[in-house]
């Protein structure tokens, strides 16, 4: 028991090691935060482009959207990360955190796009027609009528995607970012005891994910309130 206590103590306290976790955590959260924002924006734009392309039979635009979605979803995240890193790393002064955020954002955008598209397509066609028949234009109808209803179907899988994203940032270490996972590995290499720092890191991820889940559930409940259909 004291041995266990000792090993966790060693993983946390000497040389202010807890600061390494906190710094790593900051980087994990920074990358995740900006990746979620970028992924949401990118995903929304691609989803709207794809739905519009399908509705108006703009084959070329649909092809472009599908190309992005299929390439991203059809290749491993880690390979994408390495490709982008090497593309950009040829120039000097690379900000690895930025590269990470951009890469994870681009990756997430493809998944978000499909989630939003599916949400929009789950809404009855009659809603679009009713809006248009009143004289609202396509985008007004999308924004005021279709999208608010789609949001209820979008939010649960979107929250799920954010959670996956946060956990996946743990591979960011391969582009020389000292995120939470990497920080834990560094400490493990000092203490010669890999398990305690990894368990500490795992607990940190768990806390973030559970916290986010709570926030998302709150949102869903609020959306479900004035509920209908």
């Amino acid at each position, binding site marked *: 028991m004291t041995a266990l206590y000792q090993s966790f103590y060693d993983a946390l306290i000497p040389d202010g090691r807890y600061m390494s976790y906190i710094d790593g955590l900051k980087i994990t959260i920074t990358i995740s935060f900006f990746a979620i924002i970028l992924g949401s924006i990118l995903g929304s734009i691609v989803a709207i482009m794809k739905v519009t392309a399908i509705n108006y039979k703009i084959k070329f635009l649909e092809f472009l959207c599908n190309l992005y979605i299929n390439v991203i979803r059809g290749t491993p995240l880690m390979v994408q990360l390495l490709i982008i890193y090497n593309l950009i790393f040829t120039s000097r002064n690379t900000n690895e955190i930025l590269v990470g955020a951009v890469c994870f954002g681009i990756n997430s955008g493809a998944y978000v796009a499909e989630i939003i598209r599916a949400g929009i397509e789950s809404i*009855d066609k009659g809603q679009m027609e009713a809006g248009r*028949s*009143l*004289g*609202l234009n396509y985008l*007004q109808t999308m924004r*005021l*009528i279709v999208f608010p*209803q789609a949001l209820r179907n979008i939010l649960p899988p979107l929250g799920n995607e954010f959670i996956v994203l946060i956990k996946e940032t743990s591979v960011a270490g391969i582009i020389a970012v000292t995120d939470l996972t990497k920080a834990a590995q560094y400490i493990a290499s000092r203490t010669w005891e890999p398990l305690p720092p990894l368990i500490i890191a795992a607990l940190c991820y768990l806390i973030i994910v559970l916290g986010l889940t709570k926030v998302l559930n709150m949102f869903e409940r609020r959306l479900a309130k004035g509920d*209908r259909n």
Partner: protein
Amino acid sequence: MIETRNLNKSFGDNLVLNNINETIKKGEKIVIIGPSGSGKSTFLRCLNLLEKPSSGDVLFDGINITDKNANVDKLRQKMGMVFQQFNLFPHMTVEENIMLAPVKLGIMSKDMAKNKATELLIRIGLQEKAQAYPNQLSGGQKQRIAIIRALAMSPEVMLFDEPTSALDPEMVGEVLDLMAQLADEGMTMVVVTHEMNFAKKVGTRVLFIDEGIIVEQNSPEGIFENPKNQRLKDFLSKVL
């Protein structure tokens, strides 16, 4: 008021409307009848361009709305449409449903639109439902609200696509009564329906569509008492 010239519509190689030339004048109450799948809805939906004609023209108040430069959104404001499935906006209250288009299109201020909504709701005796959501209403109430939602835009013509087909029988009457009222007030109407009594009482002209062609048209008396086309006779013997 509405005119179609050589109107054709195909879905793939399925020719659904076959060269329809028809003129609907102000104040007319056109009733469209015909077998299921004959192209009635498609015809109606071509009039406000919810379906894009494959060829031919649709003119509204003399303006060719199939023209690339025509402002279809603007023209649709003058053509109300009522659907079989009501298509109320489920995430909005009844009042918000009615106010949405007039406010968002800059036709009325919020206050004006609210007054208009109240006035319309009083007219159909549903003022106490202003803050209700559509799922709290009966089918007949939903459809009557869909009708006044379209009326809030002060349309010049109202298009109805089987407005009572999705209703329980006991609710058909209240919707048809409202439509008959509108007709009395002089609204130009185009109604696809299987309610033959409505066609007889309210219609000024009946079109019988079969396989994408208006094969016979006449006054209601002419259609129901003296049908000439064999397929119209067969159709009437089945529905009457």
